[in-house]
């Protein structure tokens, strides 16, 4: 996009103004922070593009080569478009492409003196960070390279060694006692010799620097000491793409199945949420054991479910917070498998969560809990996207080589985004393992159906995956050992019914169910009859129902319900059956909820302390039995209430509230007064406008007049050369005092150009 512009521009803002809409759109796409909030004009856009924080963000997006080229631009200063091609080691085509991208990103622009990097870039490229050469910028009036070489050749060995030491140390050193301004013939020490030959240049504060042109000559005319233009190659091996797709589809299917299994399980018995919001290690271990996976694998599962909105914390039956499937889970289960997978895969792609950390400990030694809020990383999504993009760049059929594949991927990711933190090696590896578990990757290669998903076309991905998934089947094979085997994935509804009447013994591509007395009883408990179970079993089985299974169901049904359990508040018993009958039919006893269980036993739904006085009113003389059956006699308890809490608390709170309200009102009044005293003049520049003007002046090295309000509140005009703008203050050379000064930006009222 774009291409090197050949026309020079006075300012970056001018250059942006001249750009086509597409090129501007590309810039705003690549550096989204420039677009929010929408800038007023190109001036403000250029100003924002040069702001330090924005530049740092843009630098983080560069690969190693682009950083090297940008660094070279800083070192050589304003230059022709070809010079970076010479000073950066590597393929010229790649270097030229890097230059184009830097211009597209507005990190470099065409000034009248040639291509140059933004001033802020030079500050942001700290020595020691990736791609930075450590060379100082070339002096304004450099010695010719041939002359430098001649002087270098004439140096004494100690001086040469010192010079190279300074170069390696970042181009700056302190001179100590070395005298400045001595001639080559008077030089007594290596340092003085170098100073005399202008191979080191004195700076204020007793330091010397090694000018960029000298460094360039020392490095053989290059800023870089290595070839950054060739990205590390991924270690790959060949695999049949259909095998990759099958493996990935298998994983995708397994993921969906497991999520459904876990959430179904948690619908009935949700695990409690920790106070910190996570899932207890014990619950996670149990889950991992159930699913035959490890802890990070189980963590990934619940994290993805939560990210897809299928799982959240809510108050459980006992009021404590628990992890409970959401209502979206029901809608999810009703969809076809491929669509369910899409929901999970999209959620994973966009999730900043780090389930890979689960199972290890945080810096303070506490184990990481799955689903805990801290388990997220700001670069995770970017790393994941980058990893998948790199794999998508491989031709079909190429997969990561076993063993060496992932390290080479890490090295490549490091080249692509050298400024990202060190922990990225882990994150890349996680992206690969998690992607494999989710079925985006299979056997280390990107699945064919995942490609459209990465390009943003979910529907195409779903369609491609659906063709690879096994067809749901509608029958099982019943066997005499009381198992039922589903030789493939069952239809969702059927699988649920089977899970009710039989226990799942083994899951995977197929499922093995075992009928036990317990499982049959479970079905009876929720209201199935024995005939219904027989009917269901016969209807789903493709083989004859074995006789032992029929016996099992009948035997279990026969003993089902022989013991009846109910709720009662009190019982009444008497040896005199007629007394109980009389009581049961007493017109005033209707409200006591009496029910006859046996000739000599009644139960009541009325609590005993209410029941007793009511029975006495009805003329019965009951005695209370204690739990061991003995007669229990007690006088009524005396009633006491809890002392109410002190009321002063409320008064205190009222005072505080009143104070707060008056404070807010005061602030509003003050705001109103300021508004009314503000002059109506429209010529005044807006704060954003003055910032843009200042940045422009920094870039062009122009002199401007600023209106400034000093500490005493007096307003004055100052003639200044702005140097840098950062952290709310402007550093500029003040013409009146001929000194570099700092001005608070909020006190600058106007910025005016000086007429040329």
């Amino acid at each position: 996009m774009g291409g090197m512009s050949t026309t020079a521009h006075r300012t970056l803002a001018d250059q942006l103004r001249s750009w086509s809409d597409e090129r501007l759109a590309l810039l705003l796409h690549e550096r989204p922070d420039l677009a929010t909030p929408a800038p007023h004009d190109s001036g403000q856009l250029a100003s924002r593009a040069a702001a330090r924080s924005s530049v740092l963000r843009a630098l983080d997006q560069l690969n190693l080569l682009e950083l090297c080229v940008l660094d070279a631009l800083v070192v050589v200063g304003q230059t022709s478009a070809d010079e970076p091609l010479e000073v950066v080691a590597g393929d010229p085509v790649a270097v030229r492409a890097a230059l184009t991208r830097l211009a597209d990103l507005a990190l470099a622009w065409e000034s009248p003196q040639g291509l140059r990097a933004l001033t802020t870039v030079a500050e942001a490229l700290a020595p020691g960070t990736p791609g930075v050469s450590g060379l100082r910028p070339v002096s304004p009036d450099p010695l010719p390279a041939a002359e430098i070489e001649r002087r270098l050749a004439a140096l004494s060995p100690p001086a040469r060694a010192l010079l190279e030491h300074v170069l390696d140390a970042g181009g700056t050193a302190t001179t100590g006692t070395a005298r400045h301004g001595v001639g080559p013939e008077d030089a007594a020490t290596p340092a003085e010799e170098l100073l005399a030959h202008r191979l080191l240049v004195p700076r204020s504060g007793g330091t010397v620097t090694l000018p960029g042109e000298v460094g360039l000559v020392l490095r053989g005319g290059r800023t870089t000491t290595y070839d950054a233009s060739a990205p590390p190659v991924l270690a790959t091996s060949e695999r049949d793409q259909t095998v990759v797709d099958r493996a990935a589809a298998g994983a995708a299917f397994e993921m969906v199945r497991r999520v459904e299994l876990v959430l179904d399980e948690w619908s009935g018995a949700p695990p409690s949420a920790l106070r910190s919001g996570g899932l207890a290690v014990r619950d996670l271990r149990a889950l991992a054991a159930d699913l035959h996976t490890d802890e990070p694998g189980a963590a990934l599962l619940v994290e993805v479910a939560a990210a897809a909105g299928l799982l959240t914390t809510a108050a459980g039956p006992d009021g404590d917070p628990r992890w409970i499937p959401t209502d979206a889970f029901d809608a999810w289960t009703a969809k076809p498998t491929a669509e369910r997978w899409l929901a999970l895969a999209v959620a994973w792609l966009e999730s900043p969560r780090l389930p890979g950390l689960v199972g290890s400990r945080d810096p303070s030694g506490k184990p990481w809990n799955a689903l805990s809020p801290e388990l997220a990383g700001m670069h995770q999504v970017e790393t994941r996207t980058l990893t998948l993009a790199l794999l998508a760049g491989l031709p079909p059929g190429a997969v990561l080589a076993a063993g060496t594949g992932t390290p080479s991927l890490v090295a490549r990711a490091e080249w692509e985004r050298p400024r990202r933190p060190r922990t990225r090696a882990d994150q890349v590896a996680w992206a690969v393992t998690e992607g494999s578990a989710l079925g985006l990757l299979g056997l280390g290669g990107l699945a064919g159906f995942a490609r459209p998903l990465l390009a943003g076309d979910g529907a195409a991905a779903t369609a491609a995956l659906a063709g690879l998934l096994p067809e749901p089947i509608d029958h099982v094979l019943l066997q005499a050992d009381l198992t039922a085997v589903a030789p493939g994935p069952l239809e969702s509804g059927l699988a649920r019914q089977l899970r009710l009447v039989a226990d799942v013994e083994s899951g995977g591509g197929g499922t093995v169910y075992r009928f036990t007395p317990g499982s049959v009883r479970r079905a009876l408990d929720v209201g199935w009859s024995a005939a219904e179970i027989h009917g269901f079993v016969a209807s789903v089985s493709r083989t004859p129902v074995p006789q032992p299974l029929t016996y099992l169901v009948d035997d279990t049904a026969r003993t089902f319900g022989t013991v009846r359990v109910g709720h009662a508040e009190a019982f009444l018993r008497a040896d005199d059956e007629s007394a109980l009958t009389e009581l049961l039919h007493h017109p005033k006893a209707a409200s006591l909820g009496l029910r006859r269980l046996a000739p000599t036993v009644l139960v009541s739904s009325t609590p005993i302390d209410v029941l007793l006085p009511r029975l006495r009113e009805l003329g019965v003389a009951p005695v209370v039995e204690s739990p061991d059956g003995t007669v229990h006699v007690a006088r009524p308890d005396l009633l006491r209430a809890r002392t109410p809490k002190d009321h002063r608390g409320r008064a205190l709170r009222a005072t505080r509230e009143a104070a707060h309200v008056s404070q807010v009102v005061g602030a509003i009044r003050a705001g109103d007064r300021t508004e009314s005293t503000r002059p109506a003049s429209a010529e005044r520049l807006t704060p954003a406008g003055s910032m843009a003007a200042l940045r422009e002046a920094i870039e062009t090295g122009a002199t401007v007049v600023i209106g400034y309000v000093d500490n005493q509140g007096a307003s004055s005009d100052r003639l200044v050369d702005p140097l840098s703008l950062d952290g709310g203050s402007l550093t500029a050379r003040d013409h009146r005092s001929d000194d570099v000064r700092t001005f608070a930006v909020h006190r600058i009222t106007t910025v005016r150009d000086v007429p040329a």
Partner: protein
Amino acid sequence: MNDGPLIVQSDKTLLLEVDHERAADCRKAIAPFAELERSPEHVHTYRLTPLGLWNARAAGHDAEQVVDTLLTYSRYAVPHALLVDVAETMARYGRLRLEKHPVHGLVLASNDRPVLEEVLRAKKVAGMLGSRIDDDTVAVHASERGNLKQALLKLGWPAEDFAGYVDGEAHPIALSEVEWHLRTYQREAADSFWHGGSGVVVLPCGAGKTIVGAAAMAEAQATTLILVTNTVSARQWKDELLRRTSLTEDEIGEYSGAVKEVRPVTIATYQVLTTKRKGVYPHLELLDARDWGLIVYDEVHLLPAPIFRMTANLQARRRLGLTATLVREDGREGDVFSLIGPKRYDAPWKDIEAQGWIAPADCVEVRVTLPTTERLAYATAEPEERYRLASCTHHKIDVVRSLVASHPGQPTLVIGQYIDQLDELALALDAPVIKGETTVRERQRLFEAFRAGEVGLLVVSKVANFSIDLPSAEVAIQVSGSFGSRQEEAQRLGRLLRPKSEGKTAHFYTIVSRDTVDADFAANRQRFLAEQGYAYRIVDAEDVGA
């Protein structure tokens, strides 16, 4: 999707659909590394276990072959984690090797130094190892060869034993194949064992394990020690060896409680070897009495713990284990693997039945309803008394009587656990009874009469569970058992499976009391039968004989 017969589950079980056209090929391909766990009528279940995978390694298969087989036959995608696990598990076998060093004797060697270091630091192997010879080799005390192998298996780094065997004292033994021939699978079993060095042959009861033993002896051509479960079984081994080999009466000795002979071929009982007096095993010297070239363990799944300990010292001799099932109720399959050797051969029961070498069986469970009075007695009984109460109900006697009546003229065994019950049954059926106190002479007389057809009905206790050859038995009725033991069920069924004349079907009845622990235990046992592919029926006691 691939239309294979195999479904690979994430819990490492393999489901094989037997009606699939490629099922037979698939079974052959997975048998070397997967353990057959259940073989009911439609879908067989195999399991991948570390032991199974190591068995495969020992037999010369590698991980790539295993993975390839799974991918070839699997109907659905194979879980990636499982493939990784297979490769990792198999790679653990043979990292450590037991070798014979020309100077230092027995040594433990490895090319993988970290593994060797890990093992050297393990507490379990401390004291078994001698001095470090070089970075990759450690001396091993010769007497610890077995213990070390056992310990290494527990650490998850099973050693491959290259240290070889002593030839033992040579003794000519030949099979005398007149009027009979070694069956194909028996030949294969003996060959697999011999080429593997040591190991276990798994064959169903009635499939002729004794003959496999004889064939192995003929290969070894050396003095042989045979360890069997009891005296009757020892006599049967002797008879069989006399009939099948060139060995004569004088060459075979019996070493049991009654007789103590040491001959070129000696048959000893576990019982006598594990007899302990004053804290020592006085009969242990038998193991060193001769320079044995081969040791045969009959019924490996019953091998008692002291025999394991003794076997640990016999690692330089060839060892053959024979069994119908590697299932051990005590879970010591790992010890069998490390001390006797890996599984060298097995064949599913149903296959051998299909070839006509063992008889088909019809398994029936008869349910008896306890009368109210007995149910009350049962309900209030102490838990430890309940099983006895339930399984010894008098109602069972009537059922046994009508079952016996429904198989007139067919040799019938009635098998039980409790002596009182057996005595009552013997009285009611007017049949002889064999129990623990019956003398060996009397037992042999009765068994002989049964085989000859002079006695048509025998009531036996658990003494008849093992290794007693009653080929003529056609009907077995079990009235009680030892708490649902699976291998007991296998053994009892095994009594019936010797091939019958005219290919008759054997009948196996189990009588249980409904709604009691008796039925629960029976369910456990029958699950085992169903898993072996014997579909069983359930009938109510009232319907018997109707």
